[in-house]
């Protein structure tokens, strides 16, 4: 079990060391820092079977998974994070959220995202395969970066206790038991997320419930090239103006959101075995793009390489996933 700590490193070199540790040993991310106080960081990584559990203690920093980074290691995983101590904010798939102690949040490593931590923090990160998440989360893609607070959810509190218990016990645990515990945990967290989102619970406002329905509609129809704001508005019996307003509250526009989702979907599809035989333009069409040059250009901009290069970099099979705090 690798453990890294900046304790033994000279203060002036600590941040560089931390960057080095995280970037070279774990998932590919960019780490920045805007304050100049003393830096510290410790990281405990527990690797069991195809899973990995990280326990991180550190201080203010900004962790970014940029397009080029995504294309560099092309990890296709979800990361379940639990912020035990500290505050910050996170964004992914166009969602911005504040994080408070006791929040669970999910990140999708196949997509870009940011995690900004302010002050000292302690966090647990667990890697999850896509198929596992799909079994228990109805819409993980939508739930990325959206926090689940254990404050308001007793089930969430039990899940947090369980994750912490898993972190304490993971070292001596046989691989199959670890996977079983992880699966039970995902079932519980997925359920707690579902209850939080569920329109039946009355927990969410009509506004966010509608926005959620619209996003799900968009995600389900990404492949239709005639998916337009007009059609979406008509389908949900609202005006185009109201639709723009809904997305304004999320600091994006409808078309921009669709465009990003299509790009991310094409990135994921390029890595899927189902599309291994398909040509790049077929994948792009399947994701709703109709202009190839426009697609290549924006793909390059988002992922830092061409779709062909993105697909070409083969991944070593069945290596335990490498992850960084939050990603």
């Amino acid at each position, binding site marked *: 079990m690798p453990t890294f700590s900046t304790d033994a490193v000279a203060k002036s070199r600590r941040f560089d060391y931390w960057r080095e540790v995280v970037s070279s040993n774990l998932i590919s991310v960019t780490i920045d820092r805007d304050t100049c106080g003393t830096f510290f960081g410790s990281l405990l990584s527990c690797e069991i079977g195809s899973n990995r559990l990280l326990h991180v203690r550190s201080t203010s920093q900004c962790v970014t998974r940029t397009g080029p980074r995504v294309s560099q290691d092309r990890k296709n995983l979800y990361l379940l994070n639990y912020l035990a101590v500290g505050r910050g904010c996170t964004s992914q798939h166009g969602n911005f959220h504040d994080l408070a102690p006791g929040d669970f949040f999910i990140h999708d490593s196949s997509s870009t995202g940011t995690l900004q931590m302010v002050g000292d923090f302690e966090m647990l990160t667990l890697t999850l395969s896509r198929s596992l998440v799909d079994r228990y989360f109805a819409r993980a893609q939508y739930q990325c970066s959206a926090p689940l607070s254990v404050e308001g959810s*007793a*089930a969430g509190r039990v899940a947090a206790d*369980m994750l912490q218990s*898993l972190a304490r016990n993971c070292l001596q645990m046989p691989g199959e038991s670890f996977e079983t515990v992880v699966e039970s*945990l995902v079932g519980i967290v997925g359920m707690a997320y579902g209850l939080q989102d569920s329109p039946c619970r009355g927990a969410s406002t009509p506004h966010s419930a509608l926005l959620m329905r619209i996003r799900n509609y968009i995600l389900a129809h990404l492949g239709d090239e005639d998916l337009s704001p007009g059609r979406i508005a008509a389908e949900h019996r609202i005006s185009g103006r109201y639709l723009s307003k809904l997305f304004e509250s999320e600091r994006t526009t409808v078309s921009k959101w669709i465009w990003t989702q299509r790009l991310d979907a094409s990135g994921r599809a390029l890595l899927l075995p189902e599309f291994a035989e398909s040509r790049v333009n077929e994948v792009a069409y399947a994701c709703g793009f109709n202009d190839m040059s426009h697609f290549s250009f924006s793909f390059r901009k988002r992922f830092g390489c061409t779709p062909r290069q993105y697909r070409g970099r083969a991944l070593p099979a069945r290596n335990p996933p490498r992850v960084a705090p939050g990603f």
Partner: protein
Amino acid sequence: MQEFSTNTVRQRLRFEYWCEVISDQFVDLDFTCNAQGQFYGSLAAHPLGVHSLLLVKSTSQRVIRTLDRKAGGTEDFYVLNYLVEGQGHTAQNGNLHPVSAGEFFMFDLTSPAELDLVGDFTILTLSLPRTLVDRHVARAQCLCAIPVSTARPGPGRVATEMLQSLARNCRQLTEGDAQPLIEGLVRVTAAAYGAMAPSPSNLATAQSILLTRIRDYILSHLGEEDLSPCRIAAAHGVSERCLNKLFESEESTLSRWIWSQRLEESRRMLSNVNFVDRTIKEIAYGCGFKDMSHFSCAFKTQFGSNPRQYRGKQLLPC
């Protein structure tokens, strides 16, 4: 929530009161008081849907559950006990085991059981429906009364920490919240049984442990359509013949069991409001079914209505 305590009762009436309360409110049991000094007892019971969670603090006593005095309606349950503090003995199905603090054990409520505790003790008890336990723990009756230690890190410790977390949070849990938590707990408990080192002298227990591990493997891989007896056998280092033989003594064959668990998994997703955006086809494929017409037909046979109707009925009240 129900709470009882002997605090307000006079010392010489305490034990009688304790026996009365438990036999009256919970299960009819035979008590013998072994307390040397003063007797005391307190009990808090939280109903969680079909389950109930009991926290008991008391002192030396011997509790025997005899079959003929059993209260109606409890036969479909197991109970999971976690001895937080104290020590003593458990007995069921002819197995007598010493038990000490930090260990958990199950009792099967269909057969007589005995719990003999010496000195002050604290125990957490959760009742679990037979169908839920049987899904994850194979031949659970062979594992009854056997204490599982949580002294070393592992799934057993996660299970007991989860149970304690459940006890702390149970007041705020609704029935709907509790169901997946308890299911998760049973899975982790099954993993703890699966990770146990079987004693070579007891064949029934050893088989039960192996089968529990195999079930866990199957449940984790239900969604993969290439989950075959051959692959399962290889993953557990047994021959296919041996695997089939192990399942032979169960009520169904291996492939039938896989099939029924896939149906159960699809039922779970179809009755969950969060999955309304998924088509029935996506759900069926996600559960490892390949042939839609075959799936619909089997679903109807098992649950009485076809998947679409079933989903409609389940999600209607929303």
